[in-house]
């Protein structure tokens, strides 16, 4: 009874709250008013239902996540036990290989986009997920990569293969350039400075016509070549698809190794407690810089591929919104979790493409899910689980004594 009353009140409150924006639409030119009373009903019913769900989730959250954590979940088994991991990986690989031959070119294109976001997500995951540095201007490094290929190709005719490492290097260079002054800053200030930096890069690209051709961008960027051979347009798409698959595999490989290395551990430690970290002899700046630069390297690299894929780029592709999308991939996937980030990238990028009606609401849902995730499941879809180490050798040595 109490719940019902509360839900009705919440529903009424939201009807009030959304009334002017959802119900009324004025056309100031024609002097007409459009009244959309249906929306009011939607809001009323919707928030009424949502309030129940909210209460249920809140109660569940408060009852404690302790039990949940101790359970060994399917994904953990899948990624750690060789028995399952190898066949699963093989299956995915086969599907990935066949995929472009059984779908339309359009589908391949969207899949490439999704793969690009997978790599971007994994790259940002190093910075945000592992090292705990909230970078809101990640897209700037992506832009650096894309423009470096576009410009070098336009002015000097440099090939894709020459630009791929150059883009990565330039990404890293900019990462270090920005990182040195700003990494001393506290978490939330760092977020704002990186955001500012991202916007500065975009605004410069938009306004410095002599350098970047302004808002109209650069067109006719060459397709990649295959051992010096020109590839046809459709062949080019196929080629980029396989290239992306290779890059995703390479990225997973690298991130996975980094995660369980001396460096990776120091990133996680830094995220957990900076002061204790320093007391362990870890150089805070150097370690942060490594994470920042490495994340930027990946963004630069994917930027080059993005430019090659679309053969046209302009500053509009590198807005703050793009950074926010990449960030939400990392957040929704589960900070620090490779599998989670991959899943989130697929869900967030492919779903809107598949459900056209849904795509209008895409950003709305992104925003809402970022809030809801933080409130109800801050660890993301798939929580990152630290690796366990085994000591067969040690125990046996013990017994022998």
């Amino acid at each position, binding site marked *: 009874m109490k719940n019902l009353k509360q839900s009705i009140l919440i529903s009424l*409150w939201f009807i*009030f*709250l*959304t009334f*002017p*924006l*959802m119900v*009324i*639409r*004025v056309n*100031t*030119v024609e*002097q007409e*008013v459009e009244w959309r009373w249906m*929306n009011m009903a939607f809001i009323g019913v919707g928030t009424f239902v949502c309030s129940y769900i909210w209460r249920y989730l*809140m109660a569940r959250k408060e009852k404690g996540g302790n039990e949940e954590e101790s359970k060994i979940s399917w994904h953990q088994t899948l990624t750690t036990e060789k028995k399952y991991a190898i066949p699963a990986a093989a299956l995915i690989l086969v599907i990935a290989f066949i995929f472009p031959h059984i779908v339309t070119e359009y589908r391949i294109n969207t899949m490439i986009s999704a793969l690009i976001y997978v790599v971007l997500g994994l790259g940002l995951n190093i910075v945000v997920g592992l090292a*705990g540095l*909230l970078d*809101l201007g990640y897209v700037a490094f992506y832009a650096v990569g894309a423009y470096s290929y576009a410009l070098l190709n336009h002015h000097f005719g440099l090939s894709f293969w020459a630009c791929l490492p150059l883009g990565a290097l330039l990404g890293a260079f900019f990462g270090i350039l920005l990182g040195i*002054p*700003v990494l001393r*800053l*506290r*978490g*939330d*200030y760092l*977020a*704002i*400075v990186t*955001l*500012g*930096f991202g*916007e*500065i890069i975009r*605004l*410069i690209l938009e*306004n410095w016509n002599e350098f970047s051709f302004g808002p109209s961008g650069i067109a006719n960027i060459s397709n990649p070549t295959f051992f010096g051979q020109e590839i046809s347009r459709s062949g080019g798409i196929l080629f980029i698809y396989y290239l992306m698959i290779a890059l995703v595999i390479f990225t997973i490989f690298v991130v996975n190794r980094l995660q369980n290395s001396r460096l990776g551990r120091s990133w996680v430690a830094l995220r957990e407690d900076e*002061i204790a970290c320093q007391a362990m002899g870890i150089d805070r700046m150097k370690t942060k810089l490594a994470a920042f630069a490495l994340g930027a390297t990946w963004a630069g690299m994917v930027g080059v591929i993005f430019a090659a894929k679309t053969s046209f780029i302009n500053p509009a592709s590198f807005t*703050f*919104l793009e950074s*926010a999308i990449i*960030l*939400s991939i990392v*957040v929704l996937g589960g900070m620090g979790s490779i599998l989670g980030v991959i899943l989130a990238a697929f869900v967030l990028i492919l779903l809107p493409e598949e459900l056209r009606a849904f795509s*209008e*609401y895409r*950003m*709305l849902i*992104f*925003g*809402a*899910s*970022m*809030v809801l*995730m*933080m*409130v109800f499941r*801050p660890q993301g879809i798939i929580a990152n689980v630290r690796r366990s180490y085994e000591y067969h050798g040690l125990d046996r040595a013990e017994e022998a004594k």
Partner: protein
Amino acid sequence: MEYFFELFLGGLTRGSIYALIALGYTMVYGIIELINFAHGEIYMIGAFTALIVASLLTMAGMDGMAVLALSMVVAIIYAGAYGFTIEKIAYKPLRQAPRLSPLISAIGMSIFLQNYVLLAQTSDFLPFPSLIPEFSFMEPYEHVFSSSELVIVVVTAVSMLVLTYLIKFTKMGKAMRASAQDRTMAMLAGINVNRIISTTFIIGSTLAAVGGVLIASHIGQINFYIGFIAGIKAFTAAVLGGIGSIPGAVLGSLVLGWTESFATGYVSSDYEDVFAFTLLVLILIFRPAGILGKTKTQKV
């Protein structure tokens, strides 16, 4: 010299608007140490609400100051309500969470609200009626300082004075300061801190709405995206002055307003936003505590 004055007054107007928004950032940051990313969106929603109300009233045959006053009041009420609701949904459940969680939640809320307005209304720029009347006594100065600019500066100044009084001398204001300085102690003194936080959000939001209505009327058009840039700039101003400090927010806003005004006037108008962002980056790097802020030492 006249050009200089024009830029100076232009900067003053700009700075006044920034100040109205920056106060919301600074008050919220002062009390819960959160950059309320969605604050710019409140400003935008305030402007949209005012536009709708003003249009309805105009169509109903009303005009003059009454339209301005009524739409301003409705915008303030709605902005306050949005501020209150946002805090309850996106920040209150995260009081105990690690620092980055509410920040991410705030970014999510900002994206959500932008797209909510985009879908509920339109993605186009909407013309905004100029609600502020032209005063006849301003006519001789119209070429350097318009009536609406005068109104902006005066309204901002009055808002500042009211806010300062509120915070310095009322019991509520003292409780706000107490909660900002030591939340646990405020609770122990019997202050309902959650209510104080809600109040802070409401006050900040109403100021943003005032800013939104004034600037929309001055510039003459709005869209769903105006909150983002204005929000970032106002945040820059708050940081510039020293986040958490109310006089700092005003001072920072004026400095930013003049910087932008003079830089676009004497250097180049293409890079208006670049100046603001560069200023932000430079301040955070060289003086993160801002002009009037104090650095805190971390406890070990």
